[in-house]
């Protein structure tokens, strides 16, 4: 492989990673639940693209496998599973009252990305010279943004996508530094993601049936001085 091709592949990979970071920001801030899902699908495609490009760059057939697994499981099976398990209402929801307004959310998200850069670069350097791509810092940023999504969103679907986005982030870092991980394990992790979607879809359906909302983040009756004390008159004599 010529020097120029390597350079091109590196640049393309950097582009995929950059776009990956943007989708991470999008998932935090998009109000429309369906928009969140779309952004997640784009993010998974970018992850697959990055894996394929790295596979080409380092001649690793194993990374092609990772790309294929991601290509099949997340953009295709995840939406299908969601449709089968969770109520249709989760798609149409629009979040008016997030925990923080959007400018504040995005500012904090930006700070997280900067933090991830300073955390990720020394780690990538310690792992070896060939890992100095953008994958590790952006992967960590993706992980943190996913976690941040979980703290600010209230609707079921964006919360589920936050969890899957965290996993995507960990993977984006993983395809660069843990290249030789067993294929069996990659497959198992992908299956695990599908089980997450299934179980959470079932839970959301149960919540909608028995509580009548899909804003699961707003359920807050369990605490030390919550419903238990108000339910019984003797609690506070």
């Amino acid at each position, binding site marked *: 492989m010529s020097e120029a091709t390597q350079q091109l592949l590196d640049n393309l990979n950097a582009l995929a990673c950059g776009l990956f970071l943007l989708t991470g920001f999008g998932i935090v801030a998009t109000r429309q639940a369906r928009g969140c899902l779309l952004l997640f699908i784009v993010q998974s495609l970018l992850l697959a693209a990055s894996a394929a490009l790295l596979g080409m760059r380092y001649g690793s057939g194993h990374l092609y496998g990772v790309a294929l697994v991601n290509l099949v499981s997340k953009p295709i099976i995840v939406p299908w599973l969601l449709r089968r398990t969770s109520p249709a209402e989760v798609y149409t929801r629009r979040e008016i009252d997030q925990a923080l307004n959007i400018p504040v959310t995005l500012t904090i998200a930006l700070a997280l990305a900067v933090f991830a850069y300073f955390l990720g670069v020394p780690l990538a350097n310690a792992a070896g010279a060939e890992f100095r791509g953008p994958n590790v810092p952006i992967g960590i940023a993706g992980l943190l943004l996913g976690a941040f999504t979980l703290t600010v969103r209230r609707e079921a679907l964006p919360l589920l996508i936050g969890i899957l986005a965290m996993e995507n982030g960990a993977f984006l870092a*993983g395809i660069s530094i843990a290249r030789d991980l067993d294929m069996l394990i990659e497959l198992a992790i992908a299956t*695990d993601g599908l089980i*997450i979607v299934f179980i959470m879809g079932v839970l959301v359906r149960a919540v909608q049936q028995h509580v009548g909302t899909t804003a699961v983040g707003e359920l807050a009756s369990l605490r030390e001085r919550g419903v238990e004390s108000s339910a019984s008159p003797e609690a506070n004599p």
Partner: protein
Amino acid sequence: MSVVFILALPVVAALLVLLPLGKRWMSGVTVAACLGNLVVVARLAWSVVGGTPPLRLGEPGWSQWFVADGLSVLILLLIALVATTAAIYSVGYMAHGNLQARKLRLYYANYNFFVFSMLAIPLLAEPTLVWIVVELTTLCSALLVAFENTREALEAAWKYVVLSLMGAGVALLGFLLLFAAMQAGGGGVYTWAGLIVAAPRMPPILLQTAFLLILIGLGTKVGLVPMHTWLPDAHSQAPSPVCALLSGVETTAILYVILRLFPVMQAVPQAHVETWALVLGLLSVGFAAFLLLQVHDYKRLFAFSTVEHMGIILAAIGLGASAADYGAMQQIVNHSVTKSFCFFAAGATLLTVHTRDIAAVRGLIRRSPAAGAALVFGGLAIAGAPPLAVFLSEFAILKAALAQGQYLATALLALFIAIAFFGVMLHVNRIVFGVAEHAGPQDSDSAAQRTGPGLPFSCGLALILAAVPVLVLGVYVPEPLHRLLTMAAAALTR
């Protein structure tokens, strides 16, 4: 071979449960599978104690994916034991509500899958595979936590899933970094044993970051303060036998994964992992001790006590002395057997009074002597009263801490344990012996009338079976168990 058997049995049982052969079939298959597993695990433990481990580790081939040393066999034994008593308890407890067969089938199938995922944690040797089964424990138990489909149960299940998976995401990055560290250090077999060998050659920064990510990520699932917020909810809303599994052994099994990293991290003395463990442990004990004082729900009382005990174990490991390590292993055993008993007792109370509210229950001993006596016994045992199991191990840990010269840690630990003792006994005493000052007109009258035909037989049997180790381990530790504990404690150092 026995390893494959241990993992296959619960899966087969889960599939058999799905056959439409009636309610007795489901509970019968589950109890039989758990009992069978207990026998196989006990034999495995016996051979490990006898010095003939059944697997030659590190050799290429399928056996390199499994581990059966003292530490993992100890955890395995506890899981199999509690799974058996909880299965027996389930028979009567779940028959109580007159559930539909379909709903009950969901319960037993999930129960068996949950047991499978927990048994796989100590058996697997490959860290990323362990991560996957840790995820599976969350996913298999989520529907069990939500089983009652009340608003509170669903909220608890949702919080449990979201926070556990969030932690797992953080831990995944940690495990991938661990793998990268191994590759950077010249490679090797990516197993617990391989990590210990390769640790001195790994870049310290990668190892340190990986450890912290895993400690925070899996610490969420262990219920360490400040990541504990979901634990009292999930561990109180699930059906009581499931609470026994969640609190008694699931937390312990996840803590085991963190413990596996301690010998690896000793290659990097500048990382101060012991200090991290000590601080996080003391924080958990202290926080839980004060929260115990203000609970309103007796199942939450025992859930907070789990946070406290996880803290005690982690703090003991953080002391870094071999005597404290032994005490921590003993505490793991005693906590599991005692906590499962406590939740059985809490379930018996719930069957009698139909409320979880501490303020609504007074004079339980007069309404149901069995439930009342069990609750007092469980409260005393988990709080650490002298002739019972937990006292012995807590005493061993405090003694080791003093011998180590860690006076501040000893004082804090002793203080928090005393506060927790007071908190648990305060509430239990009120429930069991208290006199209702102004009997709530609708509450206690109707509850008294609803008092059913007494405790189901299988619940009583499970309570008696679970009480035996609590009593016995309080007065003496059998020689084989002592050897197993010693081996497990030795696995915590290089």
